[in-house]
């Protein structure tokens, strides 16, 4: 049972890291602000989501589980809000500048 949990954690956290690496590569390599933001928010949402999913079975209590999910939810909300704001700012800068 612990082996299964270990395998599950390693697989999901590794998958999460793949998204973070891909998001970082996109942030550096993509040509314009919108695609860079797209890469970045994908890393936040899916990468962190998978890491949190992998850590859930290791939480010590129900409170720990709820905290992990809350952290993911708060990061989702903040990056979902920051992404469009940055995109709007970049578009205004491109138009006005």
């Amino acid at each position, binding site marked *: 049972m612990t082996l299964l949990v270990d395998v599950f954690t390693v697989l999901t956290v590794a998958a999460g890291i793949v998204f973070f690496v891909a998001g970082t590569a996109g942030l550096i390599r993509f040509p314009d602000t919108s695609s860079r933001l797209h890469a970045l928010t994908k890393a936040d949402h899916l990468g962190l989501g998978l890491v949190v999913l992998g850590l859930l079975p290791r939480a010590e209590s129900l409170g720990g589980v709820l905290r992990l999910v809350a952290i993911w939810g*708060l990061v989702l*909300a*903040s990056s*979902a*809000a920051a992404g*469009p*704001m940055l995109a709007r700012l970049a578009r205004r800068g491109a138009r006005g500048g």
Partner: protein
Amino acid sequence: MIADLLIVAAIVALALPVVLARSAFTAVALFVAYGLLLAFAWVRLDAVDVALTEAAIGAGLSGVLLLGAARRLAGGPPVEDAPPGKAQVALIGVGCAGLAVALGAVILALPDPAPSLAEPVMANIAAIEVGNPVTAVLMGFRGLDTLLEAAVLVLAVVALWALAPDAAWGAAPGWRQPPATDGPLALLARVLPPIGVVVAVHILWVGADAPGGKFQAAAILAAMWLLPWMAGIAAPPPISRAWLRIVIAAGPVAFILAGFAGSVLQGAFLAYPPGYAKAVIIAVEVVLTASIAVALALLVLGPPAEDRGA
């Protein structure tokens, strides 16, 4: 070990461009990332209290203050600096190298094992009645330091308000923000504050026995106050309001009163009566949190300005 080396390498790799960056905005953005990495290093050192403070105050709040400063500087006339001469460059280089060598020598000369007060703290922690040794040190053994830190914030707000032009004195601080009626900011400003306030109260409350405390809680509270202001759905109160000034001063005043109560009852400033130490500490911390939160938010808002257009 490899993970720690990677973190150290990343911190150094970020610290260099912070110093070398040409534009103030770039430097501040990198400084915030640097602060978050530093917080990560503190977690690796098992100093979770320091990590929380670094992330909330060092990276978050200082970052916002520096961004505001960079924006104000960008509006002014460009600073014309004469490039330094060769002798000056050589002098700066020698000075920096000397300082680096001296610091390195001092660090290498530290005794091993390092002198530590951790054992006496753990031996006497029962007298302070809180489970978190960091809180015991901050509010008990070194309570005077914390008292002075809190008083410094009051002075910082006074100094900031002193920058207000005469015509704007007593008005609301900060620029008026255009109201965001829809979009992500408006949603965030309505949804996040209730959650943030609960998190802040939680961090303050668990600070007695687990990592957390008033500065971290106050930074979150200040952010939750600033968010509706940024979205334009709440205006900051005018600085002439009596309640605002009372809240700013209440924390340090409560702390000083608790200190003098110790002088009278226990014979030493900031000595807590046995059996009531935890109650006194938590009461002082709650009032201090309110004061620090309001002071931090006011520091971000800036002085009242004459031109209140966006």
